[in-house]
């Protein structure tokens, strides 16, 4: 048997356990210790605005205690997910300069807490990213723009980012792929939730058929197409009497389960520092919504050795599954796939 090559670093994000944290069933420290106990690291990703009160100014006591728990558990900080809140104010968007200050504070705190990557979001323009480059270099934190549904690697906005990063060739500006960008269906657990909550069978049929229509058309490459699709979903929800929460259906349908071909990831792999292994729910050892054999083939072919966070998002609607069990199953599935491609996923620090 041929020896396996060293693959990516296994990890998880505290986002996977949002429901437990949100419901007060576990503190951040409880979640981190359970991640370590279950062997779901060594990589650990945190969302600043989720887990840390007064982010990005949590105070000296927090900084000390966070470093202590990382030492205690042996986990490795991979990515600090920061938020590009351009729409913070109701009267206007933040200006270019305000955005730079807002992001710099978060990048600097990511550095202080030991994170080598800050995940940033699409509300950043290539100009803001370029302006943040000196901040990133000084903090020694790579910036990874998340490519999340409904965007995709070949969306013109993402292409503009890629071209800028390639031109600057800094080693600090790149991407964080999110596997929800490249789905092949709607998650079975979401359909189950619809049935549990009395969504009529006819409405479910219409929603699934519309998803397939959008899938045959491919990932949207402009705002109006995305807007039109969201309107179609909201229209179905409203028709069946779910008008109050129609936008929620539209966000799920058009914002979470993207239509891009996994092969598109190849375009950007040379600029990927970290990855969101987004998934919506494991069924019999397989993730039916994000086609991991096809996605991980790209990662294997390109020899990716960065980190991947298993990012469970079924909690949005699924209040019956244990998220730690979900992450266990997802990581096992990925390890098996990567072994098949000749790679040993790194599960130790």
């Amino acid at each position, binding site marked *: 048997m041929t020896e396996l090559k060293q693959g990516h670093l296994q990890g998880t994000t505290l986002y996977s356990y949002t429901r437990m944290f*949100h419901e007060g069933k576990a503190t951040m420290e409880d979640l981190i210790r359970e991640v370590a106990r279950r062997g779901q690291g060594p990589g650990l990703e945190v969302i600043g605005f989720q887990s840390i*009160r007064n982010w990005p100014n949590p105070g000296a006591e927090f900084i000390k205690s966070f470093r202590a728990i990382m030492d205690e558990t042996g986990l490795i900080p991979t990515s600090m997910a920061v938020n590009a809140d351009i729409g913070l*104010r*109701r009267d206007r968007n933040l200006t270019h300069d305000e955005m730079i200050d807002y992001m710099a504070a978060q990048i600097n705190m990511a550095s202080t807490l030991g994170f080598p990557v800050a995940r940033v*979001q699409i509300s950043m323009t290539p100009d803001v990213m370029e302006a943040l480059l000196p901040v990133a270099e000084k903090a020694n934190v790579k910036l990874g723009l998340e490519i999340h549904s409904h965007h995709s690697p070949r969306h013109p906005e993402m292409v503009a980012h890629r071209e800028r990063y390639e031109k600057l060739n800094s080693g600090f500006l790149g991407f964080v792929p999110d596997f929800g960008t490249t789905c092949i269906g709607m998650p079975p657990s979401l359909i189950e939730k619809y049935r549990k909550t009395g969504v009529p069978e006819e409405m479910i049929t219409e929603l699934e058929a519309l998803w397939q229509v959008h899938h045959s058309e491919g990932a949207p490459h402009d705002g109006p197409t995305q807007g039109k699709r969201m309107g179609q979903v909201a229209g179905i929800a409203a028709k069946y009497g779910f008008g*109050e929460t129609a936008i929620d259906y539209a*966000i799920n349908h058009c914002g979470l389960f993207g239509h891009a071909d996994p092969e598109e990831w190849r375009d950007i792999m040379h600029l990927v520092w970290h990855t969101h292994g987004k998934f919506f729910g494991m069924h019999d050892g397989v993730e039916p919504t994000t086609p991991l054999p096809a996605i991980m083939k790209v990662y294997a072919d390109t020899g990716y050795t960065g980190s991947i966070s298993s990012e469970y998002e079924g*909690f*949005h609607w699924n209040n019956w599954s244990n998220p730690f069990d979900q992450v266990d199953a997802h990581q096992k599935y990925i390890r098996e796939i990567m072994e098949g491609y000749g790679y040993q996923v790194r599960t130790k620090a």
Partner: protein
Amino acid sequence: MMRDNIIEPGSLRLNGNTLSVKVHMPWYRALPLSSVCDLVLDIDGHAVAPESIHWLINGTNYAAAELPPLHTEWWFVTDAAVLSGTLSDEAVAALDPAADHAVHVGLGIYIPYIDAGAGTLLVHEGDRKTLKIEKAA
């Protein structure tokens, strides 16, 4: 998102004509108070007066109209806010203190990092639960 958790069970109170209930965030990360809007509270179909609606968070009981400029004050993920408002005398008279009541909370949250094309994305969420009125503490 997680709208099943918005209304906290066991938190419905009636103090004089003021109805209140604890509200949990239907989102995964802290939001500025400027993100909170379109607050609605009703019981058995009787809505509290819109101009009376208040939002108690971080120790301050804000009138709904005070929230939009507060972009440096934060609603943390694990903190419940108290949503309150005034019922009419007729609505209060109709409430049987021992009975179950149909409670509805609605709220809008602007998602500050998502541009929906025509401005920041506004998500409306709501929860309906059957609750008893708790005795005042």
